[in-house]
């Protein structure tokens, strides 16, 4: 068994049974009330040695980088917290089946009474995978993944995935590697093929692409920079597809540089009680032979505030705009913004707001969306224990608009029109959180303001998905 010594001991230590701190003690030390933490933070301690057992294939430098902060600990409480952080960093590398750590007093001639050593026991794994269910907006998929892990010793992983769903089928092969031995900075590259169906617009696509991206954290949030080349093939779903969509059938090439910034400080991603979410996407894309085709911006903001009597207030805002950079660039319907859905602009059918032709939504190059929600616990109790925690009733007001903005002529009028032709709906319903996986809503909606071409849904509307606003 390989082991890594982060710091050389003064003398060789005989192998002894370490006095193990039980996991429950670890938790108590770190995560119960402030008073306890203060006590344990006042007991001075010093870490002599950090020891990692169980490494065979993994290179040492990447492991050392994750655990070396434990050496800086000054107190018992700090040792536990730092060790826990090191454990999650190691877990993020995704190459260990099991990671446990133990804190033991340091034995040896030159060890003082406050000297400790921390021992990590890891079990490597070279293969991984599984079958998961995935939820999109009113559609679901089964994803099978198979991974080769830790190819060259520094958490280089190859991930093969195949998803089969109600509206899409996709497969991908991705290679990922943490950069600078930091699991938070992840480089990925690979290829994918994605079959998708878009019945609201009457077309289906086959996208085959290559992509490379880097994800890294910053003080404000996480950034993802990606570049991608996609061969897109668009075909009509049936003979009744609108001619405006049929005109875009065929093959095209799109290459894009994208930057995504995300800052999610909500306490839960399905039914948050407090926190904020802010995401911002910029895309610079070229289409076919136009290297600089269009620029696309998209922003989303959510804020949650807990109010007395267990109610939660939510404010959401979103908006996006797209500008062709060269005149005559044809922006494909696949790049347009769409609006409407049981979780976003409630009271309207999925993506059915805005310009349409023959019953098929065409999308547009600008939109805005806002929502105000008030969540309350259920007025009655259903089951025992925390079951009720997954249910909420909510009252909402949603407003938004989708339209085309012409940058060459009368841009100001177009923007004004976008603000004036707003759609509005309100209602109330029940929100269910399904195990951190999806959000289910059953609402009674009243679309108060509907414009020509929209397809609205008065009355009960059911929605299931992950993204909502």
């Amino acid at each position, binding site marked *: 068994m390989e082991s890594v010594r982060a710091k050389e001991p003064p003398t060789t230590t005989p192998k002894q049974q370490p006095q193990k701190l039980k996991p429950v003690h670890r938790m108590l030390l770190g995560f119960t009330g402030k008073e306890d933490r203060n006590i344990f933070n006042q007991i001075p301690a010093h870490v002599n040695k950090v020891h990692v057992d169980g490494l065979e294939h993994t290179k040492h430098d990447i492991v050392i980088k994750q655990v070396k902060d434990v050496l800086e600990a000054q107190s018992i409480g700090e040792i536990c917290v730092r060790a826990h952080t090191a454990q999650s960093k190691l877990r993020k590398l995704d190459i260990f089946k099991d990671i446990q750590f133990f804190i033991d007093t340091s034995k040896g001639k030159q060890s003082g009474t406050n000297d400790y050593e921390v021992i990590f026991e890891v079990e490597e794994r070279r293969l991984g995978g599984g079958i998961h269910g995935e939820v999109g907006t009113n559609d679901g998929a089964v994803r099978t993944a198979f991974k080769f892990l830790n190819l060259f010793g520094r958490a280089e992983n190859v991930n093969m995935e195949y998803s089969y769903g109600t509206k899409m089928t996709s497969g991908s092969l991705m290679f990922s590697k943490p950069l600078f031995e930091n699991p938070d900075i992840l480089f990925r590259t690979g290829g994918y093929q994605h079959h998708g169906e878009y019945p609201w617009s009457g077309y289906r696509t086959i996208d085959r692409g290559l992509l490379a991206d880097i994800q890294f954290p910053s003080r404000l949030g996480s950034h993802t920079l990606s570049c991608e080349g996609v*061969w897109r093939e*668009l*075909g*009509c779903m049936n*003979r009744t597809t609108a*001619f405006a969509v*049929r*005109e*875009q*059938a*065929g*093959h*095209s*090439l799109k290459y894009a540089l994208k930057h995504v910034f995300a800052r999610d400080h909500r306490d839960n991603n399905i039914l948050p009680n407090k926190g904020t979410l802010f995401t911002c996407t910029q895309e610079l894309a070229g289409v*076919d*032979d136009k290297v600089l085709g269009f620029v696309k911006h998209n922003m989303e903001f959510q804020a949650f505030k807990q109010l007395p009597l267990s109610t939660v207030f939510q404010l959401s805002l979103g908006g996006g705009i797209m500008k062709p950079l060269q005149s005559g660039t044809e922006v494909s319907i696949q790049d347009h913004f769409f609006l409407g859905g049981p979780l976003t602009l409630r009271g309207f059918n999925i993506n059915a707001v805005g310009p349409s032709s023959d019953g098929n939504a065409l999308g547009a190059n600008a939109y805005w969306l806002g929502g105000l929600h008030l969540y309350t616990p259920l007025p009655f109790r259903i089951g025992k224990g925390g079951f009720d925690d997954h249910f909420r009733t909510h009252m909402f007001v949603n407003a938004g608009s989708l339209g085309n903005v012409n940058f060459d002529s009368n841009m100001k009028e177009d923007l004004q029109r976008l603000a004036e032709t707003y759609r509005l709906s309100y209602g109330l319903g029940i929100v269910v959180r399904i195990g951190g996986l999806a959000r289910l809503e059953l609402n009674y909606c009243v679309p108060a303001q509907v414009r020509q071409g929209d397809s609205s849904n008065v009355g009960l509307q059911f929605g299931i998905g992950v993204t909502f606003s």
Partner: protein
Amino acid sequence: MASLLADAFAVEIGAKEPWPDNVSLYQPFEVGQILLPDFAACLGVKTYLSMCGLNYELVFKKNAEHMSPSGKVPFMHIGPFLISEFDPIVAFVNTKGFHLSSHLEETERGEMRAYMSLVDNVLLNAELYLSWCQEDVVTEVSRPRYGSVYPWPLNKVLSWKKYYEERRRLKAMGWAQKTLEEVCEEVKTCCQALSEKLDKNLYFFGDNPSELDALVYGHLYTLLTTVLPVSRFAEIIQEFDNLSQFVSRIDSKYHSKDLQH
């Protein structure tokens, strides 16, 4: 009172005018993209519409093939309808009340169908063979032209994809395995049959044109005038004088006026 009458009048006129003004015919770009068989098909349809005296607008689209509901060009967009390929377009035009072969008897019409079937089976497949099974033509003409409207690397990927698809189809029909000599023999036999039928007449069935004339003209004109590394078919057709004269006659009557483009 007067406006009521005017409205009723307008409605009557509208009902009697079955051919709208905004009919469009879609095909790939003629200059750099279209291939031999597609050109023949499009020309046949255009000639037929000219023979019927019908107006249409010709629209060039690089993705015409993918826009078409059947995957083949040309296709016609008339009101809410989309009709592609020669036979369905002829049938649709007939329902609108325009007939070219109404003067024919049943037996003659049956004969016409037989000849059209012969042309489809021989001339069309010969064109496909020439475009996709003759290596010179494939590498110098077919693949470059097919991919010319797409950026790299799509131009290479799509042209090879089309090459494999067409070859697979020709193999299933038994044409890919033939040699050039065998195909020339088939073309010659077909031209012989057509030449005998045409004889010294102006058109295949008397003095008025029919669908067969449009179809044959489309194929023969294409084979005679397209410059390819392999020009055997043009030579074969030129052996039959009355066919060459037939082609130039229809050309001068229906296409030299350059009605639509």
